[in-house]
Every structure is written in C-alpha cells, then in structure tokens.
C-alpha cells in the first residue's frame, strides 16, 4: 500500500491547520458564509438537512487496518458511532459539529487520510476496481496509476476551478468493476496486439440529469503516456466546457455537443504540446509507487479447513458461495463483507464493526481492506484456510450476510433522510425491498440482480445502471418512485429505460416484487439472469408485470 511521504504528510497537516483557521474566522464573524463555503467544500464539508456532513476520501477504495480503526474512532468521538460508505468509495460522517471538523481532519492526517477535493469543481477522489491487486482476471494492479493521479490532481493549480466536478475511475482488468463508462474519464486496462498493457481511455460518461455512456477517445494508450494524456483531456475540457449552465457543464455534455471526433482532435493536439513537459519524473514516481503496491507474500497452506467447514456448516457454505470471488493467488479468495444486512442502511458500518473488519484485515488479510462502489467492504487477500475463522468473527459482528450481488445487495444514496439535494428518500425503500426478499426467501433463486436507488436525479445511487433502477422524485409534494429497466454498469454498460409511470412510496416495494416474480416466470432456466432475460425478451413482459392493470 502507498505510504505517505514527508511531503504528503506535510501537505495534509498544513491543509487541516489552514482549515482550522478558516473555521475560527467563520465562527468569530470575520468570514461570511459566502466567503467560507468554498473553503469548507474544498475540505469535503457539506451542510445537509440535519447537520454538517464530512466526506472523507478513501483513494481507490484502499484502507489499512490502522486507517479503518481511525475512522471508527472518529465516528465514535465526533459522530454518532457509525459511518456511511458511498458509491464513490468515500466515507461520510453525518453528524459532525463545525467546530470539531478541524480535529477530525487532524485525526485523518495522522493516518494518511484527508477530505481534500471530495467536493467542488475539481478532480475528485479517483476510484478503482475494489478487487484491484487481487482479482484473478486482472492484467495489472490499477492502484499505482490511481495514486499517481491522486498526487497529480491534488491541488493541481490549473484544475481547481473546472467548469464542474471531474471523476476518474480506473480498472486493471478488462472486466469492469469500477463503472468506468459512467465517469468523466474511465481508464480500462487492456493489452495491445504486441501483448503490452495500456489503457483504453473512455471520456464523457456520467449519470445524473443527462446520463451518458462514455466513448472511447483512445483505444490504447501506453501507461507511460497516461499523465500527459489525462492532463490534455482535462485541459481541453477546462477551456471548452460550459460555464453558463451548471446542468450542461460536465464533460459528457462537452463531448456530446462537440462530438467525440472533435474532442479527440483537440485532446491529441494538446497532448502533443504537453508530452515533452513530462520529462520522466512522473514515471520515476510511478516506479516508487508501484514498489509500495507490490503484492503481499502469499502463504502456502492446506485448504482442508475450508473444505471441512463447507461440509459441516451450511451457513458458511452459503456465505462462501455468495461472498467469495476468485483470487489470482492459489489457495486465496477475495472475501466481500456485506454492509447490506436485510433491513439495515446500505453502506453503514458501526465503529465496532469497523474495528472487527480492521482486526480481520490485520490477522488474516495482509492488512488490506477495500471499499466498493457497491457500498460493501472487501478483504482482498484471505487464504481459504482462514475463512472459517473470518466468517465466525463476521457473524459475531452481524456482518455475515450472504447476499453479495443478489437482490438485497442494493446501492442506495442517503436520499432525503440526510441529503439537502434529495427529492425523496432512498434508504427506507432499500430497507423494505431487502426485508421483503428476505421474507420471500427467494433471492438465492433469483440470482444476480443489481437494484440501485437514487433519491434525486443527480444519481449518486447509480440507478441508471441498475438492472432495476429506482429514482425518487417529488411529484406535487408526494414521494414518487420511477423505475428504469435493463441498466448495466459493467464493460457492456448501458443506461436503463424508463418503465412507465412512477409509484407512490407505499406501492414501490410491491411493484419491485411483481417485477422480480415476473422475471422468475419469464426466464428460460435458473442460469438466465434478470438482465439476460430482459435482453432476450425486451421490456414489454417486464412492464406487463409492473403494470398488470394496463395489460389486463
């Protein structure tokens, strides 16, 4: 894992100190709110419905045990004993007091963390495949590149006042677990004909008010050219992006309005001009970063305890069937810890749970944890022989729900329970859907299904790329939920289609139940997923299940 240099430590400590002075000046009246607001946003501090909210970056979703324990401490000392993991691999604290935030930033700085550029019109936290460095299907670990981008973008003088926020996602595998096609820039590692690794560069993706699937601007970019090329893209956008209309300011609109061919021309020209300025220092730094991300020393051991536990314990068997993914090292697995216990708030973990996960990472997981954009926590490197103990500890901490990738593994934004931008609630809808599927005991039979819920059109809950997407709106002063079907956030990304009229709050869960039961009746056999059945049959039979009164 990346270790902060003296420069990094200095930088985050100084920033916390600077913010402490800004908070003091706001409280003593020397700064107005208009003057203070840009400062607090630069440091990840929002004002929400009931309180301030501090958004802390978890770069490329990677944490060590000490960092997770510090998050637990912060949650306990300055919040209400829990944190909310988000679709951008951040953690949000929902209840800080203004005067405590500088102390929280100091506490983060102690473990090499910060809240810089988690808001504002800057390059935001760079996200990555949560299985990075562990996945069996990976070409190379994308995190050194993500860390290089973090260093390059942090306080980048040219990019502190972009037309709008800018999100970059990286995956080191051709399988896209980082939703790269819904980012301003998506970087997907691929191999060229000569077998060399490089990046497919995707630009102009995004969800929100105007969802767009990103387009390939460069099918193959050598790794060594990445930084000047990304700088060229952001630089072209910085000049060309619209500043007259906030809703048309993201790069997806710039690409849409000018066309990918024109944007490519401009970016390639800018890239040619910039290239020579990148004299190799960034490659040297990349080399140093790569060394810090060297794979851990994987042990050799018998996997007999794993096989025995599977034989003996049906609950362990079910959990290991659902929550494990293939690891590149023999005898190892990637273990996903579900933060989606049926009826719980998606993405929330208590301080006690954070400490359990930190302990497990330290004892059994080479001191690594990941946060996924699907709001779960991952132990990326666990030897199979250790999994029975890991599972027992997770069970004791109420963290052993066996539902990864299933109907109750729902993404939900905070919605109107917390967020000042929301138009309806998301969390209670997620809770009720999960409880409903738990009661039906059908979700293992239903199989792979991604339900994603956003409480407003900004789409933090990624509803456009949910197999079933739910969007909460305010319709004449009442919460109303619109359903989209057939969205996909993977390498075959597509935007879901709106199914029809929305549903009232008390009708949305029964509607989802009808839809999913409808799928069970429509599928060819248990191996045909919801999304496959949708592609084979089209929307009509699914709409008929949703709106029985219309087809009757």
């Amino acid at each position, binding site marked *: 894992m990346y270790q902060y240099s003296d420069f990094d430590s200095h930088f985050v400590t100084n920033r916390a100190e600077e913010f402490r002075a800004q908070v003091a000046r706001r409280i003593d009246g020397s700064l107005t709110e208009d003057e203070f607001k840009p400062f607090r946003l630069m440091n990840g501090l929002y004002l929400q419905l009931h309180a301030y909210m501090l958004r802390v970056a978890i770069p490329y979703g990677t944490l060590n045990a000490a960092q997770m324990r510090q998050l637990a401490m912060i949650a306990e000392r300055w919040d209400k004993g829990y944190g909310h993991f988000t679709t951008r691999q951040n953690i949000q604290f929902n209840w800080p007091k203004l005067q405590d935030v500088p102390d929280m930033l100091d506490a983060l700085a102690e473990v090499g963390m910060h809240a810089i550029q988690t808001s504002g019109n800057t390059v935001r936290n760079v996200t990555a495949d949560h299985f990075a460095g562990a996945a069996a299907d990976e070409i190379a670990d994308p995190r050194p590149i993500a860390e290089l981008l973090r260093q390059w973008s942090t306080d980048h003088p040219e990019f502190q006042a972009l037309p709008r926020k800018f999100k970059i996602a990286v995956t080191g595998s051709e399988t896209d677990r980082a939703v790269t096609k819904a980012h301003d820039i998506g970087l997907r590692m691929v191999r060229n004909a000569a077998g060399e690794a490089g990046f497919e560069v995707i630009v102009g993706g995004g969800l929100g008010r105007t969802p767009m699937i990103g387009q390939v601007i460069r099918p193959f970019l050598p790794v060594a050219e990445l930084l000047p090329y990304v700088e060229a893209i952001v630089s072209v956008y910085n000049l060309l992006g619209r500043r007259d209309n906030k809703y048309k300011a993201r790069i997806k609109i710039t690409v849409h309005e000018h066309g990918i061919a024109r944007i490519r021309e401009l970016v390639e020209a800018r890239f040619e001009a910039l290239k020579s300025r990148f004299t190799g220092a960034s490659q040297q730094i990349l080399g140093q970063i790569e060394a810090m991300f060297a794979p851990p020393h994987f042990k050799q051991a018998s996997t007999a305890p794993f096989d025995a536990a599977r034989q003996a314990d049906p609950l362990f068997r079910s959990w290991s069937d659902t929550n494990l993914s293939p690891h590149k090292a023999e005898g190892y697995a990637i273990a996903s810890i579900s933060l989606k216990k049926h009826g719980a708030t998606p993405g929330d973990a208590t301080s006690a749970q954070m400490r359990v996960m930190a302990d497990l990472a330290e004892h059994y997981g080479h001191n690594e944890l990941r946060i996924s954009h699907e709001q779960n926590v991952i132990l990326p490197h666990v030897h199979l022989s250790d999994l029975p103990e890991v599972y027992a500890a997770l069970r004791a901490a109420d963290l052993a729900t066996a539902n990864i990738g299933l109907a109750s593994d729902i993404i939900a934004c905070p919605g109107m329970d917390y967020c000042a931008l929301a138009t309806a609630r998301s*969390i209670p809808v997620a809770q009720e859907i999960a409880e409903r599927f738990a009661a039906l005991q059908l979700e293992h039979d239903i199989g792979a299904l991604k339900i994603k819920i956003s409480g407003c059109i900004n789409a933090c809950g990624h509803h456009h790329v949910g197999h079933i997407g739910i969007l909460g709106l305010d319709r004449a002063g009442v919460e109303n939920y619109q359903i989209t079907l057939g969205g996909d956030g993977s390498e075959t990304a597509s935007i879901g289609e709106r199914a029809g009229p929305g549903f009232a709050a008390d009708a949305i869960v029964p509607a989802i139940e009808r839809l999913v039961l409808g799928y069970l009746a429509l599928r060819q056999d248990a191996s045909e997923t919801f999304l496959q059945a949708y592609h084979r049959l089209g929307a009509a039979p699914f709409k008929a299940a949703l709106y029985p009164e219309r087809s009757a």
Partner: protein
Amino acid sequence: MPRAFTPKVITANALLSGDAVWLTPEGRWSTELSHAELLTDEAQATTKLTAAEARASEVVGVYLADARATANGPAPVHFREAFRARGPSNYPHGKQAEAS
C-alpha cells in the same frame, strides 16, 4: 396571476451544529418547528426574512418554508420540512432522539 401567499415559517441551519432551526415570535432560533412564528402576511414575512438573513453568526441558509397552523403550533406542509423537523427515518437520531 401571482399566487396567493400561503403561511410561512422562517427556517435555517444553526451555524455550529448544522441542526435545523426555526425563528420564534420572540426572535429566538428554536430546534422545534412547533415553536416557530407562523407568518401569514407576505410583506411581514419578507421583512423578517431579510432581518433573519443578517444573523449570519447564528445561522446558515435562511429561507421561508410553507407551514400550516395547528393546535400545537406550526406544522410542516411539505415532506422535506417534515423530515427536517423530525430527523432521519433509518435511525432514531437528531431531533426525534432529543425529544424522547
């Protein structure tokens, strides 16, 4: 045709805690919507809003929210204001916890 004025309360978030607060008839910021002053006159509401906005050392984001009169004081009209007055629905945190 301009829309008829509907009764309003003055609300904001407290500067230090960020908590939702309402302006009372005594000019105090209360964490209870029911303590708020219900303004039925548009000119008066506008004047009081301007005065409240000047209290920048106490509150942030002052605005007028629709409210209706009840026997127990003003109550929310829109569900957003109802959530602000109560707290989140997933945990007994915020005002609902303080009330109990």
